[in-house]
C-alpha cells in the first residue's frame, strides 16, 4: 500500500524505520515538526538522503564556510559563480568561462571497482555539464592500499579500467591525476575525479525552477534500482565488510548514454531552451526536485508515476532514492518544450514531462493521483541539520611529530646513494605511472597541449587566440597526518607549483577532502585544521576555492585513513604555444635548481620507502616563496627563457633528475653543494629544476633581480648517464628499467 499524506494524517502513530535510514532521533523529531505530522514513507526517504552527511555536509559545513569568508583579493575579478552551485565558474577572458570541480567516489569503488570508478567520472562530468559547459577533460587522483595487500590488485585494475572505459567512451581527454599507495588506504581506496568544462561567459545555467507554469522535464536514462540507499547508507556509515547487508545495489554506468546526453545538452544550451537544469547524482530525484524548487520560485508539482522506469516494480520511495546514472532534470517554458523534446529525440534521449513549477512554496508529488509528498523544499535542500562536532588535537600528535626522521640511518657512500636512488625510483609511489595513464585517451578533442607525464595538463581553449588553461591535482596524506594544517597547504602549494612551472598562472582551486569518521574527535580535528590551512593558503596565493567535495568515513574498523585533502589548481595560459615542458631536450643546456634546499625529510618518500617511517614534521610551508617561484616561472615561460622545467616534490631532486633525463634519453652531469643525501632526497618546497641554453643569462638575472635563490648545478649531457659529481653515476637504461617496470610487474594482466 502506498503511504500517502492522507494516510499519514489518519495514522499518525505508525512506526517508521528512520534509524535504519540513518536519521537520528532529534532529526526525525525535526522532520515531524516541520511537517506538523509524521512524514510519509516517501518523505522519510527524501529527508534521509537529503540530510545524510553526503548530501547535507552537516558535519563539514561549519568549517567549509571559511572558503567563502577568507576570499583572496582577486576573487571578485575571477569568479562568475562561487561555491554552492554544482560547480564554480571562473572568467578566463575573451568571453569564455571555465568550470571545474573534483569529487570522490571512494566507497562505491571498493564494492565494485570498475563501476564505482566509472560512475564517479560520470557524476562529476554531469556536474560540469549542468553549469552549461561542454566538458573538455578529466583528471583522476587515486589512492590505493599497500601494493602487496591482497585486495590492491583487484582494486587498481578495476578502478583504472573503470575510469578509462567511461572517460574514453565519452571522448574526454584525461590530462593527469595521481596514483599513491599507502597501507592506510587498505580496503578503502580513494577515487577522486575532476572534470573541467568551458562555456560562453553569458551561457551559465543554474539549478533553479523559476516561473510558475514552466514544465519540469526528466531526461536521459530510465530509473532503475541502482544504488538505492547508496547516498545515505554508503556515504554515511563506516564501511564494514562484515555486514554485507549494508551493501546497497551498485550503480551501473552507461557512458554511451552520457555521451549522447552531453551532445543533446550542448544543442539545448546553444538554443537557450532551459530556464534551469540539474543533474541527478546522489539522492537522485529527491535532490534534483528539492534543489531546483528551493532555488527557484519555490514550488513544484510532480506526478512521480510519469517517471520512466527500467524496473516497473519500483515503489515511489525507491524511485526517489534511486541513483540511476545518466539522468538530468530541466525546467522548460511551455513555448520551448516541443523544440526541447525534438532535440532529445534527435539524440535518442528519452524526455518526459513529470511536473510543473508552482508558486505555492511546496513540493508536492503524486503517485497515480494520491499525494505522497508535500514538503517545503528548502527544508530538504538547505535547512538540514548542522553539527559542530567536537574535535581535539589527538593525544598521539605530539609523539608523532617528535619522532623525527633524524634518527634514521642515511646513505653516505656513493654506492649507497646510487642504490638508494634505484630503490626510490622503483618504489610504487615514485615509479612511472605509465601503466595507468596509457589506459586513458589523452588526445581526443585535439586540444591537449600537455598531459601525462607532465606536471600539469594544459588545454587549448581557442585555436584562434591560443589561450588555454593548466590544471594539476595534488595531495599528500603523510604530510597531512603529521600536520593537517600544513598538509592541506602543501597540497595546494604543490598543485600551484605544478601549474606554474608549465606556464599557467594559478587563479582558482577545487578541493576533495577525504577523511575518516567525523564522529571521531581526532579526525574532526584533522578536518578542522586542514580546512583552516587550505582556506588561509588559498587567500594568500590568490586561488579562490570554487567548489569541492567532502568524503568522510574513510576507514576500516576504527582506523581512519591518513587525512587526505586533494587540491586541484586551475591556471590561465595566455598563449599555450609558450608552455614549458618537462624533460631535458638539448645536450649542453645548463641546469638551475631554483629555491632553497633544507634538511627536510619528515614524511618524505625516502623515510617511507626505505624505513617505513612516518614521523616528525612535514617540510616547511613558504607561500611567499611559492608565489615568487610561480610568478617567475610564468614570466620565464612567456618570455621563452627556459627549455624545460619540472617542479620538485616527492623524492626531491633525485627524482626530478631521473624523470627529466629519461624523457628524451639525455644524461646530466650534476654537482651538488653540501650533504649529497640531503641535496638529492630532501623534499623542501618551492623548488623547481629548469634548463636554460648555455650562455643565456636572462633567467638568472631575473631570479637575482627578484631575490629568488638558485644554484647552477650542472648541465645536460648527450651521454645516456646520470652523473652526480664525486658520488656516483648510473646509466639511463638501468634507471629506465627500475622506473618503468614496477607497476606492470605488480599489476598488469598476464
Amino acid at each position: 500500500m502506498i503511504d500517502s499524506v492522507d494516510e499519514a494524517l489518519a495514522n499518525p502513530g505508525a512506526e517508521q524505520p528512520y534509524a535504519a535510514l540513518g536519521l537520528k532521533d532529534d532529526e526525525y523529531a525535526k522532520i515531524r515538526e516541520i511537517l506538523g505530522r509524521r512524514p510519509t514513507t516517501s518523505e522519510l526517504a527524501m529527508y534521509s538522503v537529503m540530510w545524510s552527511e553526503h548530501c547535507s555536509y552537516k558535519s563539514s559545513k561549519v568549517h567549509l564556510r571559511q572558503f567563502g569568508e577568507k576570499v583572496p583579493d582577486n576573487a571578485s575579478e575571477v569568479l562568475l559563480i562561487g561555491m554552492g552551485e554544482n560547480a564554480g565558474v571562473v572568467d578566463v577572458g575573451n568571453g569564455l568561462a571555465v568550470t571545474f570541480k573534483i569529487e570522490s567516489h571512494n566507497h562505491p569503488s571498493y564494492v565494485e571497482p570498475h563501476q564505482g570508478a566509472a560512475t564517479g567520472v560520470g557524476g562529476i562530468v554531469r556536474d560540469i555539464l549542468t553549469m552549461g559547459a561542454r566538458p573538455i577533460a578529466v583528471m583522476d587522483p587515486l589512492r590505493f592500499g599497500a601494493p602487496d595487500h591482497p585486495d590492491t590488485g583487484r582494486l587498481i585494475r578495476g578502478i583504472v579500467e573503470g575510469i578509462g572505459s567511461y572517460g574514453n567512451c565519452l571522448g574526454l581527454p584525461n590530462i593527469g591525476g595521481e596514483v599513491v599507495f599507502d597501507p592506510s588506504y587498505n580496503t578503502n581506496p580513494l577515487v577522486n575525479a575532476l572534470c573541467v568544462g568551458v562555456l560562453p561567459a553569458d551561457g551559465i545555467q543554474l539549478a533553479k525552477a523559476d516561473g510558475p507554469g514552466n514544465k519540469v522535464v526528466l531526461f536521459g536514462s530510465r530509473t532503475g534500482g541502482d544504488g538505492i540507499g547508496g547516498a545515505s547508507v554508503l556515504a554515511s556509515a563506516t564501511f564494514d565488510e562484515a555486514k554485507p547487508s549494508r551493501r546497497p545495489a551498485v550503480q551501473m554506468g552507461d557512458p554511451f548514454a552520457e555521451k549522447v546526453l552531453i551532445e543533446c545538452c550542448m544543442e539545448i544550451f546553444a538554443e537557450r531552451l532551459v530556464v534551469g537544469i540539474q543533474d541527478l547524482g546522489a539522492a537522485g530525484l529527491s535532490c534534483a526536485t528539492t534543489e531546483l524548487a528551493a532555488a527557484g520560485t519555490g514550488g513544484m508539482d510532480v506526478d512521480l508515476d510519469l517517471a520512466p522506469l527500467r524496473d516497473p516494480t519500483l515503489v515511489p520511495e525507491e524511485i526517489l532514492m534511486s541513483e540511476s546514472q545518466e539522468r538530468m532534470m530541466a525546467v522548460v517554458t511551455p513555448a520551448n518544450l516541443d523544440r526541447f523534446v525534438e532535440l532529445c529525440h534527435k539524440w535518442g534521449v528519452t524526455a518526459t514531462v513529470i511536473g510543473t513549477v508552482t508558486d505555492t512554496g511546496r513540493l508536492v508529488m503524486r503517485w497515480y493521483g494520491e499525494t505522497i509528498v508535500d514538503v517545503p523544499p528548502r527544508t530538504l535542500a538547505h535547512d538540514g541539520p548542522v553539527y559542530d562536532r567536537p574535535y581535539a588535537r589527538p593525544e598521539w600528535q605530539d609523539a608523532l611529530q617528535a619522532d623525527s626522521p633524524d634518527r634514521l640511518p642515511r646513505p653516505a657512500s656513493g654506492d649507497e646513494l646510487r642504490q638508494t636512488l634505484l630503490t626510490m625510483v622503483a618504489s610504487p609511489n615514485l615509479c612511472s605511472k605509465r601503466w595507468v595513464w596509457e589506459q586513458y585517451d589523452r588526445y581526443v578533442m585535439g586540444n591537449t597541449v600537455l598531459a601525462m607525464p607532465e606536471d600539469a595538463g594544459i588545454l587549448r581553449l581557442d585555436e584562434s587566440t591560443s589561450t588555454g588553461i593548466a590544471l594539476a591535482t595534488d595531495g599528500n596524506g603523510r604530510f597531512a597526518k603529521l600536520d593537517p594544517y600544513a598538509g592541506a597547504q602543501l597540497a595546494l602549494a604543490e598543485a600551484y607549483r605544478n601549474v606554474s612551472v608549465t606556464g599557467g598562472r594559478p587563479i582558482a582551486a577545487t578541493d576533495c577532502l577525504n577523511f575518516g569518521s567525523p564522529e571521531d574527535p581526532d579526525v574532526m580535528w584533522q578536518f578542522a585544521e586542514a580546512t583552516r590551512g587550505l582556506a588561509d593558503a588559498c587567500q594568500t596565493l590568490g586561488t579562490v576555492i570554487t567548489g569541492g567535495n567532502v568524503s568522510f568515513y574513510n576507514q576500516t574498523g576504527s582506523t581512519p585513513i591518513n587525512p587526505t585533502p586533494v587540491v586541484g589548481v586551475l591556471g590561465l595560459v595566455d598563449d599555450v604555444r609558450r608552455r614549458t615542458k618537462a624533460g631535458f631536450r638539448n645536450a649542453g643546456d645548463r641546469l638551475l635548481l631554483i629555491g632553497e634546499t633544507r634538511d627536510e625529510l619528515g614524511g618524505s618518500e625516502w623515510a617511507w620507502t626505505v624505513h617505513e617511517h612516518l614521523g616528525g614534521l612535514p617540510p616547511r610551508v613558504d607561500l611567499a616563496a611559492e608565489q615568487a617561484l610561480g610568478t617567475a616561472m610564468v614570466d620565464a615561460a612567456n618570455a621563452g627563457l627556459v627549455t624545460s622545467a619540472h617542479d620538485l616534490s616527492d623524492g626531491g631532486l633525485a627524482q626530478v633528475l631521473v624523470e627529466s633525463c629519461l624523457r628524451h634519453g639525455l644524461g646530466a652531469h650534476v654537482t651538488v653543494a653540501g650533504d649529497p643525501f640531503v641535496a638529492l632526497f630532501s623534499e623542501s618546497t618551492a623548488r623547481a629544476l629548469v634548463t636554460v641554453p648555455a650562455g643565456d643569462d636572462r633567467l638568472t638575472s631575473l631570479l637575482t633581480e627578484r631575490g629568488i635563490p638558485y644554484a647552477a648545478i650542472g648541465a645536460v649531457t648527450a651521454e645516456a648517464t646520470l652523473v652526480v659529481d664525486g658520488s656516483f653515476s648510473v646509466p639511463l637504461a638501468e634507471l629506465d628499467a627500475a622506473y618503468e617496470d614496477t607497476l606492470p610487474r605488480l599489476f598488469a594482466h598476464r
Partner: protein
Amino acid sequence: MPASVGVVTFPGSLDDRDAQRAVRLAGAEPVALWHADADLHGVDAVVLPGGFSYGDYLRCGAIARFAKVMPLIVEAARDGMPVLGICNGFQILCESHLLPGALVRNDHRTFNCLDQRVRIENASTPWTSGYTAGDEIVIPLKNGEGGYVADPRTLDALESQGRVVARYVGRNPNGSYRDIAGICNEAGNVVGLMPHPEHAIEDLTGPSTDGLAFFTSVLKGLVSA
C-alpha cells in the same frame, strides 16, 4: 571551391571534430555528415572518425553499420569515392564488408593510448599518396579492440595485392595479425586505419605532424582529378 570532405557523426563518435580540423588544416572544407542523413551533401571524400559509436556495444561498429547514411557511403565507395575509416571507422568498414577481416580485443586486454611507430606500406592509395612507401611515421594509437584478424587466405591476398597500407613497427601493440595497422579495398579508395593520423597534425597537440599527409594526399588527388 575547395574540395570538401565529409566527416560522419554517429551517436558516440568522438574524433569527429578532430577529423574535421585535420581536413581544414589540410586545406579542404570539412562537411559534417549526420548518421541519419539522406544524402552526402555533395562531398568529394568521406572520413568515418574514431570513437565509440553506439557505445561500441555488442561489437565495435556493429550497430553503426546500419545507419541510414551507410548505404550511401557504400555506394559512393563502390563508385570510387575516397573513404577513410579511422579506428572505430575502420571497424565500421569491416562490419559493413567494405573491407575484409575484423578487429578484435587487444591481446593484452587493455585499452592503450600510445605514440605508435607505423610504416606506410602502400603509398598509392588516395589517402597515402603524399607518403613514400617505407616511410615511418609516429601517430597516436588508442583503442581497446584494435587487433586486426582475418583468415590466412585473406591475409595472403592482402599481402600479395599490396593492400596492407600500414604496419606497426617495433612491438606489436595489440596482437594484430602480421602487424597490420591499416588496409585498403581492391580499388584502393577505401582505407581502414587503426591509429589516428588526425591526432598528429599540429606540433602543439600531437606527437608529430606525421598524420597530416593523409589529409593533404586526398585533397591533392581531388584537386587534380
